[in-house]
């Protein structure tokens, strides 16, 4: 049983077995809101944590295609540096060469990709100071001569802190510590006699090519939920109703005649579990909706660039694309 509604209300409704009013009425000639006024479009920052690496912000009034474009650009079109070529001189550990090389590629590096040029295809792995970052990893595991300490081995766990940066040319003046973001990422485990000796070359790339080049741990958005109470619910039922939602979303407020009533405190943090539909008597008491034009973004950076800088970079990529195509159109029409 679907409700067909041409209402231009910008909310979609979560019902027990279906979600209604999800479509955007964007076909030609339908001008419910032609070119929204600029002051109706808002961007609000909610939270910046972890030294700028974690960001939560809201985009209000925008079209879902633009919000999705920002999300997709963050994941796959903003460049980063990552290890691409691995020269293995010695690897007597248990881990196979290719598995080890794959793991090296996934290590997030602090290097700023904006300081590097794109490496041309077909050039040698060593590269130049403008397009390649070189690291070396040399570890040998030995028995621990100090019998008293708990560890029977020395250097049996290979961490990212064992990676050494080999500056090329004038890199040592321009870059400060372009190594791995975290020092304690476990790369490999060794036993006495095992040795690893490799040279690693990092280049600039995009997430589209390989996910290791994605600058975000992840970037996602959700729509802002809304809960409307259709009829007042008291006492026992109110307690059950409050429990249906994520903690902090609804609360009980005392009424004049000593009873407790359920009230919506802040629908923002609701995880939309639709738990309320499990209770036959409470199903009709609330209407669950989401605002179609209010996007709550979460951007978490891997550590190379701050999230507050990643979003403008993503939009810059979109602007560059537009510029590229405008130039192509102009040059083609001159022909």
């Amino acid at each position, binding site marked *: 049983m679907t409700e067909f509604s041409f209402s231009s209300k910008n909310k979609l409704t979560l019902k027990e077995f279906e979600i209604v009013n999800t479509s955007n009425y964007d076909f*030609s*000639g339908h001008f419910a809101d032609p070119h929204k006024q600029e002051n109706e479009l808002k961007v609000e*920052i909610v939270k910046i944590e972890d030294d700028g690496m974690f960001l939560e912000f809201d985009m209000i009034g925008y079209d879902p*295609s633009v919000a999705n474009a920002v999300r997709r650009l963050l994941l796959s079109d903003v460049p980063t540096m990552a290890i691409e070529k691995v020269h293995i001189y010695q690897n007597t550990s248990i881990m196979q060469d290719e598995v080890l090389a794959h793991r090296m590629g996934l290590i997030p590096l602090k290097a700023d990709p904006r300081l590097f040029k794109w490496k041309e295809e077909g050039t040698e792995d060593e590269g130049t100071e403008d397009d390649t970052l070189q690291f070396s990893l040399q570890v040998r595991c030995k028995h621990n001569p100090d019998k008293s300490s708990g560890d029977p081995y020395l250097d049996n766990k290979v961490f990212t802190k064992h990676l050494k940066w080999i500056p090329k040319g004038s890199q040592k003046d321009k870059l400060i510590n372009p190594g791995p973001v975290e020092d304690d990422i476990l790369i490999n485990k060794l036993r006495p006699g095992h040795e690893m000796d490799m040279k690693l070359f990092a280049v600039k790339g995009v997430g589209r090519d390989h996910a290791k080049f994605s600058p975000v741990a992840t970037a996602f958005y959700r729509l802002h939920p809304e809960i409307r109470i259709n009829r007042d619910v008291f006492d026992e039922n109110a307690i059950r109703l409050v429990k249906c939602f994520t903690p902090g979303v609804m609360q009980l407020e005392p009424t004049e005649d000593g009873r407790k009533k359920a009230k919506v405190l802040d629908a923002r943090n609701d995880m939309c579990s639709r738990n309320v539909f499990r209770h036959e008597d409470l199903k009709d008491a609330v209407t669950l909706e989401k605002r179609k034009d209010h996007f709550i973004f979460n951007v978490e950076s891997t550590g190379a660039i701050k999230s507050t800088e990643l979003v403008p970079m993503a939009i810059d990529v*979109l602007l560059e*694309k537009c510029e*590229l*195509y405008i130039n192509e*159109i102009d040059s083609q*029409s001159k022909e």
Partner: protein
Amino acid sequence: MSSLLPPDKDGGNRLSVLEGDTSSGEECRTYVFRKENHTLGNCLRTMLLKNPQVQFAGYTIPHPSEDVMHLRIQTVEGYPAQSALRKAFVDLKTHASQLKTKFVTAVDNFEKEGS
């Protein structure tokens, strides 16, 4: 500082017109974009539909294995489809710039409040 976009190894134009389409006049065109996907396609489609002189706008990705996007534009008489496309790009650029400014301002205000 080099461009944010990776260099195009294959060279040539990223934008071309689907052959066999030019006979019905300037108002109908299918544009073929190399190395583009929903990121640009959906945004362009939205901008095109905001233009009252565009009668039809839609995009498709013919096969996921090929990095190609087709954008079909049909406009009112007298208004070439290419103008509609160029206007859509210009509008998208303006829209994105405004978004970037709003974001950067919001971050600055947030950081000022915090300190």
